[in-house]
């Protein structure tokens, strides 16, 4: 663990991120003041990044020395001035790769909720629940970056991602500020058409948007696929002999809703990311817990008859043959009424991350993607990261 830097100002009640290398999961932050040391445990730790969701008021305002400790090793100390000013509206948690358009994940505190009927906009309770918002952002980061599924962290991928929070409690309950729509009986969907213009007001361009909301009546999470801005020079791939593209830029970013009441024992954040990071025309990563098919799925196919034999091969992706999952491993056989089937699992002892992860025999947090979806999504992310 060499040196480190702190991203942005240190503000009580706001996010605070430290950037460096070799951070261990036991990392702690030690703020030295004139009267003693305050130890803070970060909420998310990766080897290059540690995020405190809300800098506690236990760390008094004023000048401090900050050191990080991991595996008994202390870093050199750096000066940090802690203030009690209002938390930032736009907070960069990690700047990502130093380039004009790094792959960007944005978390937004949703300002207004559109009613089921679409005729009314009400203030989103999340805007008066800073603590709840910060806790959900921390949950999402842990969920997408630190659980068993490593699709976003393998080979240091997450070290190339830009991660930003946008939370503006001054915004009114009006259509232009509404990023979430109630869907009966208990779901929330993003108002994806407004995402680009909303984020542009804050100078942000996103590939993926997590819309965090505070509804307690419509809190089942949903996602919308990305709409790629397809360009002739986007990298191509073949899927069962058909040529498609991994779009490098989005026209409409992928998006999902996450409630402040999200069940943090589940894999909802990464599951919804899986949908949202895929695309309407080049390939959809779909839910596997039902028999519905449609669109351009990457991870689901249909047998000639319900309950019929599952083919040995699922698909040929870019010249590599991927096997099928013969038994819907981790959950049990495919229901006899189903025609659909899935690609071979990475971990055959647990449900696919895109299937019903609540059925995991131990914890949903150990669920993985199947081999094909993993390879396809890694390539798609790489196309965007390399742009």
């Amino acid at each position, binding site marked *: 663990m060499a040196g480190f830097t702190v991203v942005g100002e240190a503000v009580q009640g706001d996010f605070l991120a430290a950037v460096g290398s070799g951070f261990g999961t036991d990392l702690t932050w030690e703020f030295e003041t004139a009267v003693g040391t305050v130890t803070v445990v970060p909420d998310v730790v990766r080897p290059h990044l540690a995020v405190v969701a809300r800098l506690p008021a236990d760390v008094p305002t004023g000048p401090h020395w900050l050191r990080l400790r991991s595996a008994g090793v202390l870093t050199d100390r750096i000066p940090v001035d802690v203030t009690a000013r209002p938390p930032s509206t736009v907070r960069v948690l990690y700047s990502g790769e130093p380039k004009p358009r790094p792959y960007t994940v944005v978390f937004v505190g949703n300002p207004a909720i559109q009613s089921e009927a679409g005729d009314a906009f009400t203030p989103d309770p999340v805007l008066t629940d800073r603590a709840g918002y910060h806790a959900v952002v921390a949950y999402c980061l842990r969920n997408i970056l630190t659980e068993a599924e490593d699709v976003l962290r393998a080979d240091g991928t997450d070290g190339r991602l830009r991660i930003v929070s946008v939370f503006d409690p001054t915004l009114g309950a009006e259509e232009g500020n509404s990023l979430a729509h109630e869907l*009966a009986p208990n779901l929330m969907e993003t108002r994806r058409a407004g995402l680009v213009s909303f984020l542009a007001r804050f100078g942000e361009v996103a590939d993926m948007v997590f819309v965090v909301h505070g509804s307690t009546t419509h809190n089942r999470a*949903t996602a919308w696929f990305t709409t790629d801005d397809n360009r002739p020079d986007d990298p191509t791939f073949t899927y069962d002999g058909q040529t498609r593209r991994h779009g490098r830029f989005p026209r409409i970013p992928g998006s999902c809703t996450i409630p402040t009441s999200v069940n943090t024992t589940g894999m909802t954040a990464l599951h919804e990311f899986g949908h949202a990071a895929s695309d309407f025309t080049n390939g959809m990563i779909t839910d596997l817990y039902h028999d519905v098919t449609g669109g351009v799925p990457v991870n689901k196919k249909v047998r000639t008859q319900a309950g019929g034999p599952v083919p040995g091969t699922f698909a040929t992706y870019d010249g590599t043959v991927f096997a099928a999952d013969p038994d819907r491993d981790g959950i049990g056989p495919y229901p006899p009424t189903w025609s659909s089937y899935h690609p071979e699992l990475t971990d055959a002892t647990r449900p696919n991350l895109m299937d019903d992860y609540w059925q995991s025999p131990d914890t949903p947090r150990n669920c993985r993607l199947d081999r094909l979806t993993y390879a396809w999504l890694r390539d798609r992310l790489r196309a965007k990261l390399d742009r």
Partner: protein
Amino acid sequence: MEPLHPDLRAALRATNADLTDAQIDEHEELLARRFLLDPETQEAEIQELDRRREELEQRHMPTYRQVAQRFNR
């Protein structure tokens, strides 16, 4: 879409006496079809699926909202 939690499914069955797993699955499948459609170009189809789903709710699971909210608490 987040998978339906098995405890919520059980609560729906417990509070709607004639409700079957097949009807819950049909509701889930209508939702799933909706989220495979592109809202930019297929809004009418989305609205039709929502209408069919609402009918199914009213007929077989009229207490879905209340059960879901109790489940959340």
